[in-house]
């Protein structure tokens, strides 16, 4: 392999979305090599992959592919050049046949009519190439299990004259035998000289299948190492980075009794067996990789998704929460990650949005309503022209404050925040952090899910780490480090 020709060379790759997400990334891939890419949330892995397969434009830097400058404007163009990505989320169209899914962009046709016999034949060949002769190309793809659907997608990728294959967490949905088969196929492709970029959280798999591994952190490529010369612990240390000395000091807040107790919560396959307590006046952080079940935990506690098992106690009393209305009744409020989709009435005024959960019944009382809205928007310093301004016209930070104001107006004492500062600028972020501290100071119990470790470490009194649907670590100020938290975040994926 070391002697094999260079397939892909990336130098000085840059990308900014308000903040830099890729900074001068240099990366190389040889023909027949499997190069693993690891990193925590927001490290820049997906952006890097998206640029390579034409889904995102770069801001700067050089990419050369098979010795030629490479700058795909669309996914189609990248595929024509031989770069194909298999996304983590399944993109199989269930109603179409397996064969149609594999060749969706390139159906064999004559005069606009699909040549089904030829399509079946091509599909059968593509599947047998992956050693999946048992799959009937004529059957609807939706009838296959998730693992087989993933393999069908990979077959589709390979059918496109692929020279460089990008796999993003390809084993997330696969069973052990399916993983074995995937690895066999990866090795076969390697032998054919195909280069593979393998994005994964799973250290063991990387050790099994990859030749080299690169670590991304905060948009920078920190290190590239040969897989057999590096331990998982070393990789985790690289991903975590160094601790800033002023972080991690103990808070001076005093906590009251337990406000929310969650026991053995299970929901939707993503959260399994989750238990935790939050006290009044406490900010509890929920860390972990994206997809580790943090959001699902909050949504299940709040009743937004069904619980398969588990108990929720508020003020030490068992409560039955089957719908968000039950949660709100016992004083729990959720500030969801996608506030435009799940929280705000964008076309409606700040007043209407603030008071929505606090209206009671019967007649509206315009004077009381305006007073309530004014009280809480002023307290949270929402910046708006008037209470009648549409919430859709406000900035992200102010929109977030309106959602929080809604729960304060309803007098919720337990607040569940899912990525509270996503999509807000730096100044607004500080303001929201300050606000969360004040809420805790007022005796509210806060649970904060965040993908930014820095945010959690500066905000929280305690951090729980979730990994693969379970809690794998609990840390207090003073004993937490980026490395310990990162290690816990990967722990659930290692078995």
């Amino acid at each position, binding site marked *: 392999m070391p002697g094999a020709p260079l397939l892909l060379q990336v130098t000085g790759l840059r990308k900014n979305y308000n903040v830099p997400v890729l900074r001068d990334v240099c990366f190389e891939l040889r023909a027949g090599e499997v190069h693993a890419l690891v990193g925590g949330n927001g490290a820049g892995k997906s952006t890097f992959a998206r640029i390579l397969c034409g889904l995102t434009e770069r801001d700067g830097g050089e990419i050369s592919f098979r010795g030629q400058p490479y700058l795909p404007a669309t996914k189609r163009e990248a595929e024509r050049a031989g770069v194909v990505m298999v996304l983590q989320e399944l993109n199989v169209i269930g109603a179409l046949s397996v064969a149609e899914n594999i060749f969706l962009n390139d159906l064999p046709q004559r005069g606009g009519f699909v040549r089904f016999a030829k399509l079946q034949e091509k599909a059968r060949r593509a599947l047998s190439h992956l050693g999946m002769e048992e799959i009937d190309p004529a059957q609807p793809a939706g009838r296959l299990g998730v693992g087989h659907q993933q393999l069908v997608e990979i077959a589709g990728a390979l059918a496109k004259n692929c020279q460089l294959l990008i796999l993003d967490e390809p084993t997330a949905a696969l069973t052990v035998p399916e993983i074995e088969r995937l690895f066999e196929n990866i090795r076969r492709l390697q032998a054919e000289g195909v280069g593979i970029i393998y994005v994964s959280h799973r250290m063991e798999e990387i050790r099994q299948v990859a030749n080299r591994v690169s670590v991304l952190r905060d948009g920078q490529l920190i290190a590239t190492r040969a897989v057999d010369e590096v331990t998982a612990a070393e990789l985790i240390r690289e991903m975590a980075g160094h601790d800033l000395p002023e972080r991690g000091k103990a808070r001076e807040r005093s906590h009251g009794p337990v406000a929310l107790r969650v026991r053995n919560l299970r929901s939707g396959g993503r959260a399994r067996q989750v238990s935790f307590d939050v006290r009044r006046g406490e900010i509890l952080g929920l860390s972990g990789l994206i997809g580790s079940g943090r959001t699902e935990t909050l949504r299940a506690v709040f009743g937004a998704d069904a619980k398969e098992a588990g108990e929720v106690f508020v003020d030490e009393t068992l409560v039955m929460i089957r719908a968000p209305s039950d949660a709100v009744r016992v004083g729990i409020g959720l500030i969801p990650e996608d506030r435009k989709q799940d929280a705000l009435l964008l076309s409606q005024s700040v007043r209407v949005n603030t008071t929505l959960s606090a209206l009671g019944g019967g007649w*509206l009382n315009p004077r009381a309503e305006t007073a309530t809205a004014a009280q809480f928007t002023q307290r949270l310093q929402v910046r708006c022209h008037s209470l009648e301004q549409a919430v859709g016209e406000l900035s992200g930070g102010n929109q977030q404050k309106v959602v929080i104001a809604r729960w304060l107006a309803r007098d919720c004492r337990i607040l569940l925040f899912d990525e509270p500062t996503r999509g807000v600028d730096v100044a607004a972020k500080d303001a929201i952090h300050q606000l969360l501290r004040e809420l805790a100071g007022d005796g509210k119990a806060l649970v904060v899910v965040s993908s930014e470790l820095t945010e959690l470490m500066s905000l929280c009194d305690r951090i729980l780490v979730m990994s693969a649907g379970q809690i794998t670590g609990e840390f207090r100020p003073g004993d937490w480090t980026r490395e310990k938290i990162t290690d816990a975040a990967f722990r659930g994926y290692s078995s």
Partner: protein
Amino acid sequence: MTFNPKKVAEYAAMAVIWLGLVLLFGMLSHNFLSARTFAALANRIPALVVISAGMTLVLIVGGIDLSVGSIMGLSGSVMGAAMMDYHLPLFVGILLGLAVGLVAGAINGSISVCFAIPSFIVTLGMLEVARGLAYLTTHSQTKYIGGAVEGLSGPIPGLGISPAFFISALVIVAGQVVLSRTVFGRYLIAIGANESAVRLAGINPKPAKIAVFTLLGFLSGVAGVFYTSRLGSSDPNAGVGLELSAIAAVVIGGTSLMGGRGSVVNTFFGVLIIATLEAGLAQVGASEPAKRVITGAVIVVAVLLDAWRRSSRISL
């Protein structure tokens, strides 16, 4: 009670458009501008007015109801059958007609909400079912009732306008009050704006959605009673195609088909505009096909104007 100046301005704008239409026909035809024209207009629209008022609320929550005309026909038929075949008194006949509408609306709402089926489909089914039931109850015949029934839609002596018109105007006022002054009305607008957000705000949107369909079914029953009383007989064909007039009136009044925005008062003006257009075109001698072409074009132009007005306001 305080008045929202923005809302008053919108009502005024709709009123001006209607008055413009009236003046236009007044110029085109000598005898259009007379008390008789307006009395006739007022006595023709009550059924459409009450249905359109309910339809406004259904559109605001993001639903639609295609079965209103059939439900109107069914409740008139039930009323006629009750009085003529079973010799029940008038008020029992009216109550049965209203009850049938209420039940049909409740079925529409419950099926669409509880099984998450688009209301378009559910009410399309109800359009056929209710019409079929109307034919079955009447054996496809118009039943003459006469006498007592006609009081509701006959002009009040000395006034020239029927009690039905005043009732329908009352329904409009009540509908607007519910929409803009009650928590229920606020929830309707919120559901239409973002149902998922409403649920996550701790409000169960289902009862409110079922309630508006039930209310519209009931109002379709009221329309059936009005229509029967105007004809003096129950007609299983009553209200054929009325759903389209109602939706057109609501949309001309500026209510969004996507939900989240609307006004019952402006729907009333929408009904006036459609009815005036019809009456005026008839008086200037337009043929039936020409009337349809013009009415259709006016609906589209009204919605275009509304969309343009809104987009220009937002860009300001």
